[in-house]
């Protein structure tokens, strides 16, 4: 079906009165999302990330081609499906984005604070370098299955902390992650909530980030997803690449093992 015809179909479904749309197309929202996935603007971010990865940049005028995501310097195929993992050179469990920070600081000489400050871009902007790099590196594992192992004691530890944090209630809303993401078929207003205690749904999430967010007009990453939940929970701001973020991502990625990576994802 041509792109134009798909759009017309999507608009036709959307224009139906609500009850009728619900009767004739019970999965109209899912259909619309599938259509958008086929012309995903996130592809542009992947191209940009590819360029950024090989360009000599930063105070040291270096590329990221020697960055080691766990499989050796510059080896990207299959790297993201093993993340987060323990890195001996930093002595720390790192997710993709905190590892990118390490490489941009250590190899290229950027300042960590500057990178962290601009990592999550404003809506309707051209996006940050690190977002483009994150989606590019992830795209090199497209079609591969998530396979986070917890062989190193620190990996096991981060997983256990993540599991604890997922259930930890605090703040003026008394929310934990599980408050909104612990049951099937729940919504905040009209927005579907993913049930992160259901393996199949976790896998759909874990395999589809970074993703292009239509309502924001930019690519969003897993670090952003964590940050934004804490914002909505009315808690303080989660620091980019912080231990709490890595612990939660370790927990979620491990729970989603077996998910097939396919980015860019598309979110509303």
């Amino acid at each position, binding site marked *: 079906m041509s792109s134009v015809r798909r759009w017309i179909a999507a608009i036709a479904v959307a224009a139906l009165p609500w009850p009728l749309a619900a009767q004739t197309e019970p999965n109209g929202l899912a259909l619309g999302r599938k259509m958008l996935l086929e012309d995903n603007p996130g592809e542009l971010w992947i191209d940009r990330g590819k360029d950024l990865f090989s360009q000599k940049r930063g105070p040291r005028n270096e590329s990221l081609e020697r960055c080691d995501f766990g499989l050796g310097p510059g080896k990207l195929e299959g790297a993201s499906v093993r993340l987060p993992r323990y890195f001996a050179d930093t002595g720390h469990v790192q997710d993709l984005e905190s590892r990118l920070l390490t490489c941009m600081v250590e190899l290229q000489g950027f300042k960590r604070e500057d990178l962290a400050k601009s990592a999550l871009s404003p809506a309707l902007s051209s996006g940050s370098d690190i977002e483009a790099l994150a989606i590019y590196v992830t795209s090199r594992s497209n079609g591969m299955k998530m396979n986070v192992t917890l062989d190193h004691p620190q990996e096991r*530890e981060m997983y256990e902390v993540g599991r604890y944090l997922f259930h930890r209630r605090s703040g003026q809303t008394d929310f934990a992650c599980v408050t909104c993401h612990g049951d099937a078929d729940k*919504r905040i207003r009209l927005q579907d909530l993913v049930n992160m205690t259901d393996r199949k749904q976790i896998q759909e999430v874990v395999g589809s980030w970074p993703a292009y967010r239509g309502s924001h007009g930019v690519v969003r990453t897993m670090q952003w997803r964590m940050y934004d939940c804490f914002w909505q929970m009315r808690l303080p701001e989660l620091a980019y690449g912080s231990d*709490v973020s890595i612990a939660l991502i370790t927990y979620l990625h491990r729970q989603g093992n077996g998910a097939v990576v396919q980015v860019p994802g598309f979110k509303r």
Partner: protein
Amino acid sequence: MSHSTTVGQRVRTLAASLCPLLAIGCATTADTSATRDDAEQMIARSFSAPAPELLKRLDQDKAQQICSKVDHAPLTQEQSAEVVKLARASIKYPSSGKLAGDWKHGEQLAHDGAGDRIQFGQLEKRKENGGLCQNCHALEPGEINVGNVGPSLTGYGAQRGNSEEIAKYTYEKIYNAWAYFPCSNMPRLGANGHLTPEQIADLVAYLVDSKSPLNAKSK
């Protein structure tokens, strides 16, 4: 990000390295109190806020600690009783004594999901916080943009009436839901200071008043 290794991590790294030699004490789940200690230390270094007192939002009170059950583990009877006791002790009433206020203002509050969030180093300051109701509850008949994390409130007063008892129960339920349903998903909106007693009384009116659109006959 700090690269410091916590004591808990070091102890468990040692324990794990001994695992193959000892053949016991090598359970796959880490010791829960050590995990909690590590997690709390990570929380202390993972967040920022425009004012130091806002970081206190991360601290758990006693009830939140009890209610943070991993993987839907059940509450014990003692825990449940303690949460209810703490909740009952927290409830304060409007100085006017009126538990059902202005339903029109309540309607507006029920549909307002904003207030008091922290982003880009700024606290979201408004005249008043929204009530957040619509995020999780169905409200007026025919209203579509509503959540379903909590039960439907459509026709709440039409079903229950607007007696003093119902108004009091409803007020207390919004002020601190855990007084009736310990550890339920619902925020303790009054006890946590998200809403004032007067705002809650207006929400009560929106729920119970026979003139409220929430109690209108279905379209």
